[in-house]
């Protein structure tokens, strides 16, 4: 995570932005079924939980002492991530949004997200590792208005007609969750 991003051409950067801005617009417009088409069928969608950790005394003086990675209980840990989902669960969430008895989203929440800091970190033959940050404003009836803040660590598959998401890990900037739900698509 300490390295510079891969040097990319303006066109390639523009391709990535176009993909992510399209995705953001679909999600803010509540077009979740169209969003599903951006996912690979073997997609992994992970939200690690985050804890206030004890710093390792022996790492003092080093950046690693307060590395974010120590705070994450992710897929490979023996802790419990908030979400570890494949296509089926993501589809269940997406389809739920269009049921009239999904009471907690009826009336639906209003969201607006800004996706930025898009960096290509590694490139394989047809896969790309991409980082991006988001701020997501969230308002719904009877709830405080909320700011979600986090980073997305994606693996994209490059296809003839664009990209699809093979893996997304969402690093949220919260330990205690003072948010109405982590059930959104970030």
């Amino acid at each position, binding site marked *: 995570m300490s390295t510079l991003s891969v040097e990319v051409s303006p066109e390639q950067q523009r391709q990535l932005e176009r993909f992510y801005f399209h995705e953001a617009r679909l999600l803010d417009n509540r077009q979740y079924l169209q969003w599903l088409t951006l996912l690979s069928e073997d997609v992994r969608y992970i939200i690690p939980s985050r804890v206030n950790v*004890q710093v390792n005394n022996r790492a003092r003086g080093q950046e690693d002492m307060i590395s974010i990675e120590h705070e994450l209980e992710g897929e490979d840990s023996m802790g419990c991530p908030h979400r570890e989902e494949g296509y089926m669960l993501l589809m269940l969430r997406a389809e739920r949004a269009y049921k009239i008895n999904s009471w907690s989203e009826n009336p639906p929440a209003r969201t607006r997200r800004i996706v930025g800091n898009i960096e290509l970190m590694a490139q394989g033959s047809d896969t790309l590792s991409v980082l991006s940050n988001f701020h997501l404003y969230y308002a719904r009836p009877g709830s405080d208005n909320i700011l979600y803040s986090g980073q997305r660590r994606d693996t994209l598959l490059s296809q003839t007609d664009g990209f699809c998401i093979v893996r997304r890990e969402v690093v949220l900037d919260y330990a205690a969750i003072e948010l109405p*739900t982590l059930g959104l698509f970030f």
Partner: protein
Amino acid sequence: MGLTIRDLVNEDASLISRRCWSDKDVYALEKRGIFGKSWLFLGHESQIRAPGDFVQAFMCETPIILSRGQDGDIYANINSCSHRGLPVCRADHGNTKRFVCPYHNWSYSVEGNLMTIPQESEVVRKPDKTQLGLKRVPRVESWRGMIFGSFDEAIISLDDYLGDMRFYLDAFFDRFPAGIEFMGAPHRWVINANWKLPVENQLGDVNHGACLHSAIIPAEAQQLIEKLGHSVVTTPGHGATFRLMPENTPVDDVAWGMEAVGAIFGGDEVQNYLREIQAQARERVGDLRARMKGLTYGIYPNLSFLWSNTSFKVSHPRGPGKVEYWSWAVVPADAPDNIKKILRTNYSSFFGPAGILEQEDSEVWAQQFLGSNIDFADDRPYYYGLGLGEEKPHPDMPGLVSVTANEFYARHFFTRWKNDLQAVEGSL
């Protein structure tokens, strides 16, 4: 205060005042009468296996360090320095020899004893450090690895406090030869709700599933739950709901975990593991309890166990209208790591802050607080009378038993709640 507790809960607890949920004076009495007098869940022994291990906990709003001492014993101390009151432990969990207050570096052993006062060498009269340790929780006891603490030195033993709930808890715990363990740190979810509603929800409210969760739970599944469902109150405030499957039910329909996403997506390896556990169940817990398929459990005042999605939960109050709701995924301690990782999703997919079901629960809990905090409706207490008086003793199971639609679990909770608050009323 203008209100008295007897005005808030009527004789048979079928009418519950909105003020029970929203009044700050009532909340102050709850701290004294309930959280100061009950056994409160602190953590599980699997979280603090080695000397020096610690986790943070809460007893109501009071921060607690739960630790394993160098002597191997379990200690619970209030996380507040004897000098200026700061928390001396700032990490959620870890292993340490000392807790050090950042203000003047007073340091404490993992057992809570005051070890050093850096400034002491410069003064003539030395403070008596033996009197200045962290305040110890006076009673700490465990049952099946579950650690509880109480501020009431005179409280009955934890075994007696749990009473016949042990029969129902063992229907789960005793299935696993090595017991259970908690996976990782709790998910901590701050919800603008009163602490009692998550408790009530997990104590016996099975029937909201057909309504609130109808977008997710298929109607046939919910009907089956209600048809086979039993609701039990062993002692007021303690309760369990479960399905009692008919004799000769196929193993896949009775085994714990088989209906959850871990088994559905986990394939043969997970399913065979669950079948093996069920195959031993009759021998381990007896025929009746081997046929139990649990739903919700509650231990007074604020511990819940969600058997169907295998999670322990504690509802920590943060005032009348806010709760910090903690949840842990729970798995058999001797399961292989790869199976534990799959089984934890039984909890996290449906419950906790990202849970597809609990995002619906948390919304109604917050909305219920708004409804409880309105004006001009104090003459309309909430109706808790469904199934009044219909619960009965059962020949084979301890406690009072009824259908899940009977709200007696909540009436019993509020009867105990009322007694506990009346015992300290007027003492503020």
